[in-house]
């Protein structure tokens, strides 16, 4: 059984994610130490708190994280955790992200209610192991006001339309992200986590 580390960079509900990963067939740990990063077979960046605080929280392990990911370790960013993968975010200021995926997190338009909260359609736009078995149009649970604008559209695996179209699942090599919360999206969400666990096992 592979071990997946949930990076504990902030304060929030990590318990559901840990349980979700366990349900998906992994051993899940919560931590932030460089040794833990190294020991894990895969890493999840959860979605809790604000962008700037999250980047600060990751500060101490940033180097170690980049090293592991560049060496090919699978990484899944969820919600804010997906936005952290991008080059930049405009959440209450302008902040640099990890730059693992080229693009920016920008605020959704004010023409729709914010946060984007609840179950919305995920339209699959290309084949990817991370989305295997998930029907296009499946409903997943979202809770966010900022969303990615990708520089390279080929990274997009699925999109969602709320105020504007944004990538709701991404993949670049061993790096994956979802704007929704798979651990809160019932059966289809657990299916996605199971796909990530399969990728980690390989």
């Amino acid at each position, binding site marked *: 059984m592979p071990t997946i580390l949930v990076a504990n960079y902030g304060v929030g509900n990590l318990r559901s994610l840990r349980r979700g990963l366990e349900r998906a067939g992994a051993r899940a740990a919560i931590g932030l130490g460089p040794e833990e990063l190294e020991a894990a077979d895969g890493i999840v960046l959860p979605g809790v708190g604000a962008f700037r605080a999250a980047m600060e929280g990751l500060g101490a392990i940033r180097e170690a994280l980049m090293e592991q990911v560049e060496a090919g370790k699978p990484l899944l960013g969820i919600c804010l955790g997906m936005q952290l993968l991008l080059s930049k975010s405009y959440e209450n200021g302008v902040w640099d992200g990890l730059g693992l995926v080229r693009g920016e997190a920008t605020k959704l338009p004010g023409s729709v*209610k914010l946060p984007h909260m*609840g179950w919305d359609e995920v339209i699959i736009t290309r084949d990817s192991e991370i989305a295997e078995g998930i029907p296009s149009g499946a409903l997943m649970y979202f809770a966010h006001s900022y969303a990615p604008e990708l520089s390279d559209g080929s990274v997009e695996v699925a999109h969602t339309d709320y105020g504007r179209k944004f990538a709701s699942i991404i993949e670049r090599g061993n790096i994956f992200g979802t704007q929704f919360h798979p651990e809160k999206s019932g059966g289809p969400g657990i299916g996605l986590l199971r796909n990530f666990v399969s990728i980690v096992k390989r």
Partner: protein
Amino acid sequence: MLAKRIIPCLDVKDGKVVKGVKFENLRVEGDPVELASYYEESMADELVFLDITASKEKRKILIDVVEKVADVLTIPFTVGGGIGDLGMIQELLCAGADKVSLNTAAVRDPELIRVASDRFGSQCIVIAIDAKRAWGAPGRPRWEVYIEGGSKGTGLDAIEWAKRAEGLGAGEILLTSMDKDGTQEGYDIELTRAICEAVNLPVIASGGAGAPEHILEVFERGLADAALAASIFHRNIHPIMEVKRFLASRGIPVRM
């Protein structure tokens, strides 16, 4: 398209669900964990747990319930009732709650909304507003905000308070009509619509649901994003899927 949400509300006292929950096929009546699973299987989109435990010493029991519920659910849930400070919010989120709802404490200290949403993110800070119709100018209704479980008027105008909470960083509003609560005569459409038109936040309407038609009405005319109900689901008068099928037949996007 974003689905309209159906949210059963469970009242919890000393770690047990109270208030008329009745299922014939359920072994442990009143067990929050079993009921949570039951509702998830019944296609609830989200759950709200309202802690009505009077004694603050029994907080540990609530935390224990939240942990156990979080372990079984794969849908989001909110915890509310007597949450007074940042420490309590943090404890509940870490125990596995996705959102917390603040009521009295936010009215007494509105800065709590700002600090909490800065630290934990707006998406997990729900502001619960208990509103009661008050005399306004002719043809212009107004509603007053009540606190402490609806026992104490504040003089605050519900619409103004909702706008202020939005400005301070609230992520959602859980709006209860005290006039309609418990009547099963339908939601307060006028109140719900007035709040929905005043803020750009998702609004959960609460109080008065007695039939699927009431839920349709609060979505279509009240403009609500989610509908919360207790007794019609607990007594299984109208199962969630029946309500959803009805809504879908009337063109409302729902998760089925």
